[in-house]
């Protein structure tokens, strides 16, 4: 049973990593939000499975909170914001997908190598997935760097938080305090984002020079 659960956690970890890659290569904002929601679902599932296996009610709580925040509330807010800013069908024209993906794979190798000695020390059921969590964080970092528009950057930030949260769950489920802190951080981040969000978008869209960039490219 415990082996099956650990395999299930590994599977969810793989799904989270795959979604991080999909987000890195996705040009459309709407699809990005859908992918982010799916990543939240995978995260909730992974957290719940860890909680079930280790018998820790704390983790159920944090899974529930993640569900409310990252699957329901934040995607809803994102939908409303892109509706209001009229960027629903926006397509990021400037990213070079093959190069980004190659950078991504180098980061994944780096993260796996970094995490391997750490996860060997870990006795946690999901210790092996620490590398995946680290890779997710790095991939979301890359996404924030290569994107020039506000909403994808915010989504990259949120997805990085997903990776951090997953790292916390997979490496240190034995310490409820950390999980507790993770939840608190979650809420904090949820509120922070909105601030950063509006601010960044306002800033970005006041001087939205994508049209100038397009002109540069065409002529």
């Amino acid at each position: 049973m415990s082996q099956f659960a650990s395999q299930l956690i590994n599977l969810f970890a793989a799904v989270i990593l795959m979604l991080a890659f999909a987000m890195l290569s996705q040009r459309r904002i709407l699809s990005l939000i859908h992918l982010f929601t799916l990543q939240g679902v995978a995260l909730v599932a992974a957290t719940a499975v860890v909680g079930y296996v280790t018998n820790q009610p704390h983790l159920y709580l944090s899974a529930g909170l993640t569900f409310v925040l990252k699957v329901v509330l934040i995607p809803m807010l994102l939908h409303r914001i892109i509706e209001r800013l009229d960027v629903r069908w926006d397509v990021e024209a400037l990213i070079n997908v093959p190069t980004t993906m190659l950078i991504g794979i180098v980061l994944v190798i780096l993260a796996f190598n970094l995490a391997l000695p750490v996860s060997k020390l870990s006795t946690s059921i999901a210790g092996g997935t620490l590398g995946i969590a680290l890779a997710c964080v790095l991939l979301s970092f890359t996404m924030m760097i290569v994107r020039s528009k506000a909403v994808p950057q915010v989504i990259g930030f949120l997805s990085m938080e997903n990776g951090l949260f997953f790292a916390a769950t997979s490496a240190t489920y034995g310490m409820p305090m950390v999980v507790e802190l993770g939840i608190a951080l979650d809420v904090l981040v949820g509120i922070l984002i909105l601030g950063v969000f509006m601010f960044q978008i306002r800033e970005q869209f006041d001087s939205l020079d994508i049209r100038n960039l397009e002109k540069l490219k065409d002529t």
Partner: protein
Amino acid sequence: MSVLGSLSQLLEIVVALLLAPLLVGWVNQWRAWLQNKSAPPLLQPYRVLHKLFNKESVVAHHASSLFRSAPYVVFSCMLLASAIIPTLSTDLPLAPAADAIALVGLFALARVFASLAAMDVGTAFGSMGARREMLIGFLAEPALLMVLFSASLIPRSTSLATIVETLAHRELAIYPSLAFAGVAFTMISLAENARVPVDNPATHLELTMIHEALILEYSGRHLALIEWAASLKLFAYSCLGLALFLPWGIAEAHAPLELVLALPVLVLKLAIGGMLLAALETASAKMRIFRVPEFLGTAFLLAVIGMLVHILLGV
């Protein structure tokens, strides 16, 4: 070589030959239904084959013998490919002849001959189609190899029969690496079988054709063989995907009862797979040819990550 083994091998070849056009008809029917069109009958591909086999084959004046022999080469490659993929049983006398790498080679051989034949007559569309086909081929092949490698890391063997036997008849285990490989394999099979995001099998617009442009010069029995080979390829890819990612129901060696059960299970899996393929094709739009390298590059990277995940998690 056991009698049962030879029997299952023979059964597999016959099933592949007979079911392949049916699968194409099934997919076409579902695609028409999903697009609110009136569907062609399920047996339409057989009728087309019958019609083409009875027609005279017209060959250009300056076509070389390569042009004439290519359909036979392509057809036999596909037939051999569907014979070595364990569709019904893993006890196949022909399986030791070719492992996963040779399977990719078989597909490559068929592609090279089809492309050479298309360029042989010297029409503009033929050589354009050949170039595009090779573009897709050289990107899809390494990705397919990576997918097969990440599957063969599990039993540490590249023999398809061993892989499927390990996956199907061991205690149930979830392999995260196979999730990556499965997504990559789906993308590759869409590209390799000239399906919608990459190529449109029903197109009549020459400039967007890939597979259709290759076979533009063929007629009569040659065209019939090539069409049949194309449906065999779709069948082989579907069976490969089912064998690697949903291997339950494929019979082991020395299990005649399982062999009897394997056929209905295969038909059921193919029916569901065909429906999903039609849905996928309806939901997606054909992409520009210059987006195809991006698409297949993503498939390659996913397959590589699958291997990395396997190494990291060490399952």
